[in-house]
């Protein structure tokens, strides 16, 4: 039944009229930002216009953009609140660290190692997502927020007692809650609270940008698919969705697990960009930071989240001249952006200002503007 209704929505005419144009525009802007940003930053780096400070943030920017996109799948598209995105990131990061180190002797080609690590990280993170989501997503209410909050903390503390090492024969050793005896420092992979150390960095801006593109591709396609429409239908009205026979739990779980595995991949890339990686990095603050990207960019607005993630990653560094006051300035900027983007008056001011200076202004667009203006004056 549900399939038939969704299929009927999928008929060509309706799709193009209702969803198709919106989707195309969103995809165009999102990919445009990604490719444009990539080219811009790459050019800046090549010409030396961009200093080391910003260049060093290229990979983290891509990672945070990916995380914002994948969290948007849960928060924006599926309408559930997740407060443990950093937990999935941690799962991916530490899985990736172990996989890359184990493969180091077997596979000399670094990108291939990274690819395998990404895939395994995605699988492990998806498994974690499944374990969390399975008992929870059938329930009504904000249980997911509570459980993911706990999950993030559990993962962090779990990583504090996990020990992995390679012995001199190249065998992988594992220990729980105690150090592995007889391993010299170079063989350590994960050392409990110290985390992964001595990681040979293999992440580059290009790999990270490709990962972001892949994340974007997956999320946009889900959003525009039959399943995506089912997920959004449930978000908008759960009872109506159930009444046409949609399996609420299945669709919510689908969004959640995909989001978790994408976060795992982003985490893996993140881990491969730093020579040390401590579990404490993936605490509640990081989860909230990712949520802030999504909220600031507009919940459900994929490219808004991308811009927010990129800017908020750069911002604390760009504010370094304020030294100790920069987090103060950062929060003021955050509040200002919140007010500016959600205030209709300011929004309309900006758009009228933009209309005045817009060089591509044509009659067609003016026509579209006029009736709205009169409407506002009347109100």
């Amino acid at each position, binding site marked *: 039944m549900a399939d038939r209704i969704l299929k009927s929505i999928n008929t060509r005419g309706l799709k193009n009229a209702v969803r198709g144009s919106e989707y195309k525009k969103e995809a165009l*802007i999102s990919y445009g*930002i990604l490719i444009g*940003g990539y080219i811009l*930053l790459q050019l*800046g780096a090549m010409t*030396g*216009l*961009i*200093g*080391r*400070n*910003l*260049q*060093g*943030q290229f990979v*983290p920017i891509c990672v945070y953009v990916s995380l914002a996109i994948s969290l948007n799948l849960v928060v924006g598209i599926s309408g559930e609140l997740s407060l443990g995105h950093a937990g999935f990131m941690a799962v991916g990061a530490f899985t990736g660290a172990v996989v890359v180190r184990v493969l180091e002797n077997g596979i000399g080609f670094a990108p291939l190692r990274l690819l395998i690590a990404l895939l395994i990280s995605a699988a492990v993170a998806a498994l974690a997502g499944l374990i969390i989501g399975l008992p929870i997503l059938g329930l009504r209410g904000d249980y997911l927020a509570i459980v993911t909050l706990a999950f993030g903390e559990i993962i962090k*503390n779990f990583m*504090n007692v996990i020990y992995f090492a390679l012995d001199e024969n190249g065998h992988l050793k594992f220990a729980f809650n105690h*150090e592995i005896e007889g391993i010299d*420092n*170079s063989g350590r992979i994960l050392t*409990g*609270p*110290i*985390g992964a*150390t*001595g990681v040979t*960095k293999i992440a580059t801006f290009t790999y990270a940008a490709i990962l972001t593109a892949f994340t974007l591709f997956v999320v946009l396609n889900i959003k525009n698919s039959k399943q995506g429409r089912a997920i959004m239908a449930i978000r908008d009205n759960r009872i109506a969705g159930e009444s046409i026979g949609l399996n609420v739990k299945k669709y919510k779980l689908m969004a959640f697990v995909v989001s978790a595995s994408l976060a795992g991949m982003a985490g893996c890339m993140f881990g491969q960009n*730093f*020579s*040390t*990686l*401590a579990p*404490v*990095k993936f605490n509640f603050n990081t989860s909230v930071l990712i949520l802030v990207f999504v909220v600031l960019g507009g919940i459900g607005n994929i490219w*808004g989240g991308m*811009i927010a993630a*990129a*800017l908020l990653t*750069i911002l*604390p*560094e*760009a504010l*370094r001249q304020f*030294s*100790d006051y*920069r*987090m103060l300035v950062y929060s003021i900027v955050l509040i200002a952006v919140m007010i500016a*983007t959600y205030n209709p008056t300011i*929004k*309309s001011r*900006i*758009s009228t*200002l*933009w*209309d005045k200076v817009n060089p591509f202004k044509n009659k067609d*667009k003016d026509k*579209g*503007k006029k009736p*709205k203006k009169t409407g506002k004056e009347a109100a």
Partner: protein
Amino acid sequence: MKKTFTKFAAVAMACMMVFAMTACGGGSGDSGSSEGGDNVLKLGGIGPTTGPAALYGNAVKNGAQLAVDEINAANPDGLQLSWDMQDDEHDPEKSVNAYNKLVDDGMQILIGSVTSTPGAAVAAEADTNRTFALTPSASAPDVTEGHDNVFQLCFSDPNQGIASAQYVKDNFKDAKVGVIYNNSDNYSSGIFNKFKAEYGGDIEETTFTTDSATNFDAQLTTLKNANVDLVFLPIYYTEASLILDAAKKMDYSPKFFGCDGMDGILDIEGFDTSLAEGLMLLTPYTPYSEDEKSKAFTEAYQAAYNETPIQFAADAYDCVYTIYDAFGKTGLDASASMEEICEAMIGVFTGDFTASGVTAETMKWNANGEVEKTPKVCEIKDGKYVEK
């Protein structure tokens, strides 16, 4: 249609912001490298000047600033130093950002990072980029290991553990030894593991994590019931103060023995210093030392910042003087590049170079980057540190 414009406006604004920022980044980089020429050696520092570990970062910032000012004032026509300390909030990611920012600004020698986990991340960057680094206080072995360009001025964690174990073995032969340590902390577990290996005997172990560092009744009860006479505390002073307080409340008074993280316990606001009576600690510097150099430093620091310096400040102070002396031995001038300075400084440090400072009479470095100096054991008597 209007909505589209708003969106485009947003995108345009975002692009402009990115442009503005990249312009900033590039601009400061250019101006930085050109300044290096006029006999000013640019020292950069990285450490937490905000956040929970800010005490350490600020102590290093102030300690180094004091030494830089002294050197510059003493010889205005000679080599001058400049000092730029960047905040990392005790986060490896931010620490690497801070390092990159300093390189953009033309830093020639790095003093940092202050804390261990960020220190390890920065050490790797400094290694690939060839920056000479002397850390005042990042004591984990990961910081120096595998990096020929990174040196420590403080004791490494393993060496502190070994020195503590030896002292306890020699001076408390019949004592039953117990420990309370933070197993989610690099510093604490690093020291304890070496202590345990060196001590060899039976140890009553209790642990806590950074998240649960508020109540220590359970750990103390365990130790009390096991009749422990000496409690080893390889932890920071904030937690130690709570432990001392809790022990007093349950009428449990073993000998407490700590490491350099214990330094600063007498300066906690609202802390009853009588609780710390008899506390022993391994530390390279105490503000009440009778040593001439220490005394002069303490007085100068108090005059400049109106507070009692902690060991981190003394370490940073020594770092600057050590670098100044070592740089003089390289025969380079301040116009040398970061890479040239790095190779020359490694040569000096791995040679027969010895430095003398507030934290030790003589300091020597081995090829691993670890410092060799004699540890001091102090005991708190009448609210003051007394050297043993």
